[in-house]
């Protein structure tokens, strides 16, 4: 963080996002993790991010960005990649475009609900690119409606007090759906927290590396103060609690040869009894699919035995 003040910042502020929103702090580190952030070309599906970042004639972006139709982020990424490849082969790339990276940004609705087909189709096609899903468990921009990642029983305006919700695969296991496509080179679950503050950046870096060869997918849980009903300052604490309890599992999956190898980034206390140093029982944790789990990834050098002692206070409401 020491050169933070001088780095090129691809996504600026002044945006019309809610106070306490986590979207900008999800997207900006990912773009900045690219080898050449200025050469990232991004598409964004309709959602909170678009509406906050671009209201004519103001834009928060400093790199190329376009809005695409809500449910078609995957197709949009294929189109950009095809154009880049075609113009490269014909020797007609504009100056400065020698390491262009395609980035797709979509919320959970545009990824795992209305856009689920688009996402899986894009994974199947195997085009290089990085897909970033900022998951706030609902269609928040239109006022918190139920989406493919809204957990069973969650209160949304279309499922008031959990009415008519069902358990869904996409919430914790969206990455499993993605990994059904063999072409996927990298997939990771991450979030924003104080305990693993660089998780998103490191995973984004690894994802961009893998994205040179095929589809890479980042699933970031980005809480929404309006939709989730928590005080605006608590977003990172929610990330902490989610990681500690396993509600937000931290893991990443890398394609090695023809196989997808799963890496556990943090082992929650309550799962320790199921850890035998090699495998985790199925059904306890998404990583428990029987394949070998390897701990010791770049994101944490060891499983913390004791959680750091941070006093979580908010003087806004006077409660600790």
């Amino acid at each position, binding site marked *: 963080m020491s050169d933070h003040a001088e780095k090129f910042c691809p996504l600026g*502020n002044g945006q*019309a996002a809610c*106070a306490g929103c986590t979207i900008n*702090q999800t997207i900006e580190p990912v773009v900045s993790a690219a080898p050449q952030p200025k050469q990232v070309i991004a598409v964004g599906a309709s959602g909170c991010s678009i509406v906050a970042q671009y209201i004519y004639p103001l834009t928060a972006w400093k790199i190329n960005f376009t809005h695409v139709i809500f449910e078609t982020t995957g197709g949009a990424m294929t189109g950009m990649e095809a154009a880049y490849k075609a113009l490269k082969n014909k020797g007609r790339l504009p100056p400065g475009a020698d390491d262009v990276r395609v980035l797709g940004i979509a919320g959970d609705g545009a990824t795992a609900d209305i856009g689920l087909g688009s996402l899986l189709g894009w994974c199947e096609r195997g085009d290089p690119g990085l897909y970033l899903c900022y998951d706030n468990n609902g269609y928040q921009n239109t006022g918190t409606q139920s989406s493919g990642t809204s957990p069973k029983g969650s209160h949304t305006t279309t499922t008031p007090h959990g009415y008519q919700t069902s358990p869904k695969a996409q919430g914790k296991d969206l990455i499993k759906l993605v990994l059904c496509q063999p072409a996927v080179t990298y997939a990771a679950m991450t979030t924003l927290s*104080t305990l693993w503050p660089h998780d998103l950046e490191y995973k984004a870096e690894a994802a961009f590396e893998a994205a040179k060869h095929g589809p890479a997918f980042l699933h970031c849980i980005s809480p929404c103060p309006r939709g989730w009903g928590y005080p*605006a300052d608590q977003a990172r604490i929610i990330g902490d609690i989610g990681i500690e309890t396993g509600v937000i599992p931290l893991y990443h999956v890398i394609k090695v040869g023809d196989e997808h190898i799963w890496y556990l980034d943090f082992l929650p206390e309550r799962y320790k009894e199921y850890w035998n140093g090699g495998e985790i029982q199925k059904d306890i944790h998404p990583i428990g699919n029987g394949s070998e789990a390897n701990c010791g990834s770049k994101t944490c050098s060891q499983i913390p035995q004791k959680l750091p002692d941070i006093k979580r206070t908010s*003087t806004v409401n006077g409660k600790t």
Partner: protein
Amino acid sequence: MNQKADISYFDKLEPDSPPVTIVWHARGNQGAVAATEILIILFALLIEMGFEFDGTSAPIFGAAKEGEPIRIYVRLSHDKIEVFYTPTSLDVIVIVDPTISRNVTLQGAHKDTVFLINTNKKPEEIARELKLGSKRIITIDATRIAKEELKSKRSHPNTTILGAFARIFPFLPLELIKKSIETKLEEKGHKVLDANLKAFERGFAEAEEFDGRTSDIPLEEVVPAKKLAWYDILPGASIPATGNFVVNKTGSWRTERPILDLEKCISCMNCIQACNDYSPDAPTILTQYGKDGLLKVTGIGYDHCKGCAACVTVCPNQAIHMVPETEERQ
């Protein structure tokens, strides 16, 4: 333009006249939408009782984000209202949050517009400050009264302001307005309802009025925003990606501001990471390289801070705390 004869306020709604146009300027979560809904409930009650009235209420959100200014346009009329466009000329302007830019709140004011402003200042004082010139002003310190009566974290000033608002339309029975408040708020329980009714009564009683029509207060006209011609707009409404959104000083959204204690700060930069509105070009956390070559945090950049307090929560040393934002925000 309101063509009614100019008496104290509105003593009735005339038939065969254009509707009275009212706007409420507020931020999200100040209860303005609920207040206007109460007005419509009131008019529905009056119609049920056999009076001839009509009322419409239309909120306009920008990007609809918490803290961003919103406007709600209300039309009240004797005859059936058949126009729905946003009024360009307003008879009553209610300002729930006086920190909203004058360029926004004064739009559409004409020479007879009545202003109702939620402020702790005296009416003449606020009129001078806002360069309102020759208007009737009603002020009410609704924020304070609401806090005193409602005693909760989100003490909405809306019902208090409704009390002051009732002065503008003296022909509307206070008991009926109270009944409308009850209809809107009954699901919140008796305690909340009673507190709001008390706040309403205090709003009516404690409002202060000022007839500025013959005063020497200057009037500064609102400068309409310059618009691009159609041929100046790039194809596809493209914008050069210069991050020009930074001109939008979102610092005006906050209701509380962070104060940094440099003694306790260890420059861990957790706050920078947690701030959704941080950007090196217009930083919300100011930094500087020290003599030792290390980057140090030196203060808060208030231009874009929305007051969400995420920095407070992630600071390992509790070096930041929040204080209420004043009307004189820097």
